[in-house]
């Protein structure tokens, strides 16, 4: 019974500390995977939009139907979050903003700006 306590079992999600930088980091991954999933949709819309004026009109209509408006807003969030958190990671790798306070502040900034840009996109596509 000696190693009964070897592996701590403490998976109360509400009590695990999840720092803001971890949110930025995991969201970088999630947004990357979401863009991979959205890739065929984006290429389909590009294809359609270049097949003459009628196809272009249809692509614009598609973008304005509710389900595609939601999907494209999710992709827009993914794109902007991934872009800004990617820039943040590059800057941190080159040695700027590495102290904890700066890193936390930039993580908050990236998380908020990603959502804000998605909302601006949603307003633009309406």
């Amino acid at each position, binding site marked *: 019974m000696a190693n009964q306590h070897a592996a701590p079992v403490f998976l109360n999600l509400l009590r695990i500390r999840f720092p803001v930088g971890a949110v930025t980091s995991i969201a970088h991954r999630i947004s990357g995977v979401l863009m991979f999933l959205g890739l*065929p949709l984006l290429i389909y819309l590009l294809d359609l*939009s270049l097949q003459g004026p009628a196809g272009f009109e249809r692509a614009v209509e598609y973008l304005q139907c509710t389900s595609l408006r939601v999907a494209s807003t999710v992709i827009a969030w993914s794109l902007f979050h991934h872009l800004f958190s990617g820039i943040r990671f*590059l800057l941190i790798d080159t040695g700027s903003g590495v102290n904890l306070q700066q890193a936390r502040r930039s993580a908050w900034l990236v998380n908020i700006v990603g959502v804000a840009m998605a909302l601006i996109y949603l307003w633009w596509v309406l």
Partner: protein
Amino acid sequence: MQRFSAVYLGVFLLYLVTHFIRHPQPTYQQWHAWISHPVMNIASATFIIAVLVHGWVGMRDVVLDYVHSLRLRLLVLALIALVFIACGLWALQVLLVAAR
């Protein structure tokens, strides 16, 4: 490779965003003329290649982190590679047809 492609993707995306801010609602003619302009066409094709490289490395890292069974890993990676190759060829064909 991952960073190199990331920088190109970032620069191209910033250009796209500024373009859409300056020309918010293009007509078909404007849209087609923009995409089929040689510089934009080649820059877009390069963007597609960079997406394939960057996306493959990223998705591979994610799969290696979360899928531990060797067989399943190979299967998932093969599927992802197939999707990337198909999407890449499709997108390049769209750009090529637009440029004609």
